[in-house]
């Protein structure tokens, strides 16, 4: 039996009928058709599906669509503003924080919440903060760098260099 739900995704309101067992990530990808939120596992381990629900990061493969009724959801498609990219997007591009890009939407959304709670995190805090999100490509160095950069940008501080640093 389907159930009608209404929720906001990236500021736009949607009303849809869903089967109660539909996972939120499938709802977003299949019913709404926004495919920026990815699926990387079946055990809530990888974080590729991370979105924001009322500003809090959540793994959308672990939540039913019906549980999100009445909530405000942000996906990767909703973080850029009319003025341009979100600082976290800029951070990832400028610091080579992505390779294949599959983990990137989830990583960025997780990082947005992290920086909201802790605007000037240490490297250690960032590493623990994103430890629910797996990346198989980057080795994380540049993801950490991207988040530090975005933090500085959000605080209005001087931006750190984006040049790669080598052992000379």
């Amino acid at each position, binding site marked *: 039996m389907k159930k009608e739900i209404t929720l906001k995704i990236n500021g736009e309101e949607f009303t849809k009928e869903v*089967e109660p*067992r*539909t996972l939120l990530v*499938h709802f977003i*990808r*299949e019913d709404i*058709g926004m*495919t*920026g939120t*990815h699926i*990387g*596992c*079946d*055990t809530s*381990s*990888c974080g*590729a599906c991370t979105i924001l629900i009322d500003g809090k990061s959540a793994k959308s493969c672990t939540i039913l669509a019906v549980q999100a009724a009445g909530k405000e959801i942000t*996906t*990767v*498609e909703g973080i*850029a503003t009319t003025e341009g*990219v979100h600082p976290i*997007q800029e951070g*990832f*591009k*400028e610091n*080579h924080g*992505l*390779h*294949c*890009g*599959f*983990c*990137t*939407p989830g990583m*960025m959304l997780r990082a947005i919440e992290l920086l909201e709670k802790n605007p000037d995190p240490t*490297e250690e805090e*960032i*590493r*623990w903060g*994103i*430890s*629910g*999100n*797996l*990346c*198989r*490509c*980057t*080795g*994380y*160095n*540049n*993801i*950490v760098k991207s988040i530090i950069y975005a933090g500085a940008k959000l605080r209005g501080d001087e931006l750190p260099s984006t*040049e*790669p640093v*080598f*052992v*000379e």
Partner: protein
Amino acid sequence: MIQCKTSKEISGMGHSMKRKEDDRFIHGKGNYTDDVKLPGTLYMDIVRSPYAYAKIKNIDSSEALKIPGVLAVITGKDLEQYNLHWMPTLMSDTQMVLPVDTVMYQAQEVAAIIATEKYIARDAREAVRVEYEVMKPVVDPFKALDADAPILRTDKPDKKDNHIWHWEVGQKEETEKIFQEAEVTVKEQMHIPRIHVASIETCGCVASYDKVDNHLTMYMTTQAPHAIRTVFALVAGHVGLTEEKIRVISPDIGGGFGGKVPVYPGYVIAIAASFLIGKPVKWIEDRSENLQADSFARDYHITAELAGTKDGKILATRMKVLADHGYTDASANPSKFPTGMFSIGTGSYDYPNAFMEADAVYTNKPPGGVAYRCSFRVTEAVHAIERITDRFALEIGKDPAALRFQNFIKKEQFPYHSPTGWEYDSGDYEAGLKLAMKGIDYDNLRIEQAEKRKKGELMGIGLSTFTEIVGAGPSKDFDILGIKMFDSAEIRVHPTGKAIARFGTKSQGQGHETTYAQIIAEELGIPAKDIQIEEGDTDTAPYGLGTYASRSTPTAGAAAVMAARKLRDKAKKIAAYLLEVSEDDLEWEPGKFSVKGAPEKSKTIQEIVFASYTNHPQGMEAGFEATHYYDPPNLTFPSGAYICVVDIDPDTFEIKVRRFVAIDDAGHIINPMIAQGQVHGGLTQGIAPAMYEELIYDDDGNILNGTLMDYLVPTAVESPSWETGHTVTPSPHHPIGAKGIGESPTVGAPPAIANAIVDALKPYGITHLDIPITPYKIFKALKEKGVLDKNIVES
């Protein structure tokens, strides 16, 4: 410092240009296979075997077919009618698409459901009843050759045992003699564990067959779209699906690492279903299916030996491999190399003699043996040589760095002929190790370690100074299913001076859209930002063998250079015509030709291109396009010097990688930022098998850690902060002196970490530990040595 010949505006080689592909990814606009939506798509799910070895007595689909929305349950018997139930592997073995009567490993495909919705397909999967007669599997590869072991491949009438092949290389007798007479010999038995690439995107496809046009479009997660098209045509040609009727499109790929080279049964079943039903069929596997059924990597049992003198001169190495291939040899090696490039196992050292042999066996495990971020079994060879080198240093009481300096192939010895038949192109191993030692402050670390040892603290320093062998490969030796391993580039420059270039390779995150553009920018002076790169569509891109084994830059990158140089030759002719001088009077600087001695008389590349469409010399072909198929004259031999420091907690044996310095030599670097990113990623994939990852099977062939909950892919917390650098020794035979970088770190990191951990435990008589080295393994080893506090109780 890397010197650039072009301006930042042009951004040729050596510029850390930001990646062109990133804009779509950071906006969630990547287009991965699961994002492909076609009208009327059906969904496929797969029933898998709970047993490692069993006869299928009956498959009852009746309940499943009653579920509204379920269109079909496809079994091996159905495929048998079309002779599609078996397919060839890349190693000319055979693999079941769906079994007719026997399952050979746990999680093997047994039947496929086709339904109108994903969730309905999953419901139906649960409703299919399969009756099995369970048999005792062969799990331990060492027992596979026992006289009483059941013969697994009963489908092969002549097969009388579970042996697949034997391979050997080197100087058997000389090596034996040296071992008999040597002052010092050392020997260790090692296992390079069965692991999984675990790219964050799993595998999948959308097979879309058009009955009217008899045409198949196959969107799929493949690193080698052209080769895959040929394989499909070979498998399905007899039912009318010939190669011109097949279009393979590899959209954005969420990480490949070798795991997306093979043809998995799911792809073929999806094609068969689409072919029979006439609608698009989507199949996207779950992570657990991916870990449990898709190709594994490694799983080599190696006995490594080294003979040398008391003062440290190495004389010979001997290696004997037992390779566990699962139930079929579905490796992805070049045809003539069943053990891939394992024969690079003499590494960076000047060995007069070596002998290596390998035997492969069938077991009841998933097939595979993919080149996981490694140029075909190089990781296995490098681990063996780097570990046994350290073992030798330990035996004779010499510092492992000093021992390496003593035995390195010297810079002046290149091109160097190895005892296993390779011609190393170039290298400067001393320079790399010196830089790594300086970077990590090696001498002071040894002093610190000595202090700590006095206090009973566990600190270890590990080295790995490896040589890779990549860029397969020269057509005289290298092919896959008979297709030579060249690769290709096609460049088209439009009248307004902007370009599109297409390649036979396929990026999975390596950044080809940026680096290939930079290569062309370097050669033609057209800004990299003005060059669009396309790969992955067999209808539009020139034929090539794809991206794996660090071959893109050595082969397709070289093809881009050669195609661009053809265009520069043409540009020169046009410039001479436009400037009314002879070609000899012209000189090139990136972006323009000018008249020698009269630099104000010049034509930019954009003006020249425009003229090629609007005002080209009579008799010359119009337009500005070139294609090149590059057949490399040799492989390339990147190298690296890695040093790692670990601290081990004396109570919990938790291992902490304190620092890790990686110095790579990949020849000339196209984009230092991207090259460094590749090294970071590979290093994390190196620490993974060294400390965390291994696919574990019990005696009944059950996989014990087939999900991401228990298969430990490192997070940002396990992954140290990597420190990287480079030396530059160009490849003399590659047109831009590049060697390939993506895989060195995965290859070089595990032995550095293992060597560091064993070094930390040296005072307690431990000479070797198999990776992944966990706190529990350390605990057990120390306990066996009787050095543990009596009141530490085994939990």
